[in-house]
């Protein structure tokens, strides 16, 4: 199969959906002439013209509101927020309007909006361009939250998000943009709410999101050398969550390590731990549920501190060993 980057997979999903469906358009800051801050929409302006690739002023609230309104009258907008940090500015329209309208109109209105945004640290972009806010939106009924890990997942999940009649927050990761993987050329959907087992194992379940899936896979290779057989579950969609796959994995291994980049307190790991503790998997737990997540600090500019602020491969290996060797 053809190998392309995560970034190209996102662009291809948007391009193919825009070709297929004239109601789909892209709106955002620097998405047109500049080709997107990370070049995700590079070349799309030339292909689709300024009516479907809309550059906006620096106004996240305005562009999200415009996209929400367009969605309400039957368009299928893709709004790009340049950095997830700026979704704080967009959140009024997203949380208080887009997420609510379908309920407020008794199902007579739909908001088929996709809000794409890159999250995460690792680029030296410091406090205002490195954050992971997924759990802010997971907390809002009416929103769906998607966090793809691989190019294949990125394309299939973005297509499914565009076709979904509800507002979807589609969270990409800056460090994943350049990663490569097999991606079919044709259009395909990956259903929202379906987790993926990225690696099968029997000793320990690691539930990881986004870049942490990749780091967990690397950790698993190292751990395998010590005979520790790790299973890695990638929820892919945080809301709605595929609890069945998670519960079954925990029942199999009896030990859980949750890894995400976002700050631990109030992060999605707490939700995952709660889901597991409430489920039938509880009786299968043979160790405490552990969370490995971002430290309780803003992402620092200093490169060494930035690396220390979020879980790295070595951290995952260490925590996994603690769990499997019953040191916790």
């Amino acid at each position: 199969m053809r190998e392309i980057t995560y970034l190209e997979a996102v662009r291809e999903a948007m391009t193919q959906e825009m070709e297929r469906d004239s109601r789909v358009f892209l709106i955002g800051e620097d998405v047109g002439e500049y080709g997107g801050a990370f070049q995700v929409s590079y070349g799309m302006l030339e292909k689709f013209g300024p009516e479907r690739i809309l550059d906006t002023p620096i106004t996240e609230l305005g562009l999200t509101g415009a996209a929400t309104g367009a969605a309400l009258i039957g368009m299928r907008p893709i709004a790009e927020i340049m950095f997830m940090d700026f979704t704080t500015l967009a959140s009024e329209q997203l949380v208080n309007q887009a997420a609510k309208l379908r309920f407020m109109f008794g199902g007579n209105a739909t908001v088929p909006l996709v809000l794409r945004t890159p999250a995460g640290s690792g680029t030296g972009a410091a406090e205002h361009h490195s954050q992971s806010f997924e759990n802010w939106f997971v907390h809002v009924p009416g929103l769906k939250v998607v966090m793809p890990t691989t190019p294949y997942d990125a394309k299939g999940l973005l297509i499914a998000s565009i076709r979904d009649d509800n507002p979807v927050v589609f969270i990409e990761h800056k460090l994943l943009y350049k990663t490569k993987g097999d991606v079919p050329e044709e259009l395909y959907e990956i259903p929202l709410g379906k987790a993926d087992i990225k690696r099968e194992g029997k000793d320990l379940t690691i539930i990881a999101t986004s870049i942490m899936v990749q780091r967990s896979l690397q950790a698993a290779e190292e751990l395998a050398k010590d005979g520790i057989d790790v299973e890695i579950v990638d929820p892919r969609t945080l809301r709605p969550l595929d609890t069945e796959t998670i519960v079954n994995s925990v029942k199999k291994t009896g030990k859980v390590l949750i890894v995400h980049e976002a700050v631990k307190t109030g992060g999605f790991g707490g939700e995952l731990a709660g889901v597991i503790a409430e489920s039938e998997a509880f009786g299968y737990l043979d160790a405490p549920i552990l969370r490995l997540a971002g430290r309780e600090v803003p992402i620092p500019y200093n490169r060494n501190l930035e690396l220390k602020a979020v879980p790295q491969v070595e951290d995952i290996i260490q925590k996994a060993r603690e769990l499997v060797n019953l040191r916790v």
Partner: protein
Amino acid sequence: MAIEMIMPKVDMDQETGTVVEWLKGNGQQVEEGETILVMETDKIAIDVEAPGTGILDGISANPGDVVPIGTVIAYILAEGEDLPKKPIESKEPVLEIPESSVPAEIEISATPVARNMAAVHGVNLAVVDSTGTGGKVTKADVQAVVSRAAKPVDPREIYATPAARRTARIEAVNMGLVRGSGPGSRIQVADVKGYLTSKTQADFAASPQIQAGEVIPLIGMRRTIAERLTASYQSIPHIQFTVRVDMTNFFKARNDYNELALKRGDDKVSVTAVLVKLVSMVLTDHPWVNSSLIDDKIILHKDINIGVAVALEKGLIVPVVKNADQKGISLIAFETNDLITRAREENLNSADVKDGTFTITNLGPFGVEQFNAIINPPEAGILAVGSTTSEVVALPDGTIATRPIMRLTLSADHRIVDGAVAARFIGDLKTTLENPILMNY
């Protein structure tokens, strides 16, 4: 300081113990853990170990003496030490020794005292956490397990993972006996599984692997059986009567009971359960068969408590269904199933095996058609139940048919049960078994 030797409490409801024999006398050197006394309860003879090393002295209870538990019956003195002037006040002993006492014959490194103690307490050495030098299991290690096992464990007091608890629940493992390998000695699922494995192996190793030429000491249950049966056979003149019973109606009744039990979700009704019920009903009309000759008195028992002999790997035990005449079939079925199951798991307590007034022993399942049983004293009768076989019988109208026939043999204590009394009982029993509906008359 003189070490007190007390009459131990080995049975839950035991109040006294009888001194059978001192193996060491006053002035003799004894080692801690060495067997120096044989005592018995009303159930069983028990070897009692020296509580310390030194010189045995001041024996105050002689063979045949019945002594309250906790009473000081001797002292172990140090070299040159005198007997205490006043008897030290008795105190309640901590240990409870279960009736089973199978030597653990497994290749585990243990001190002789520990091995002996484990044998007496039925503890599998394989599951004992060893602290001695070179991994030897010490007396204290066994003691720790015994005291943990002695009291029922509140699951909330156990530090264990949910998975370990779940596994223990499914496998019916007493978590108090499992050693935790997790942080803070938390019990992991692997610990429960490991316990089960070692227990199974230890049980296997401890089960009698009899080899030709082997010499087995007469101890524990075997000794009790040997002594009781010899005494019974030598002192009680047995009379025996056999009847043939047409079991057609009995089996029909039992099937009816089982259909009802199935509908109600009750325990399956065994042949034994119905026999217990019918025998107890017939006994209500025959008080002499439900009596005991003790010393110079004949006691006609008010209660009808039917013992059911259960064969075990290492002997025989007779759990008792109390007041069977007053209980319904379903309750008796439940109780007999429960007693037999627990007997095979060696889980009976002393209340389960005492106060029997009549015994039923059934060797039918082994294909034995008819046999004579030895009376289980102080009872006056025992019923030996043979197998049921299809036999050709002549019916009252002169025709011939095949019928399920079972032979019952009553052994009765002829000192108190006359031939005619025994004959009437066995005749009534035959009539009742052949027409179980008469039970309701």
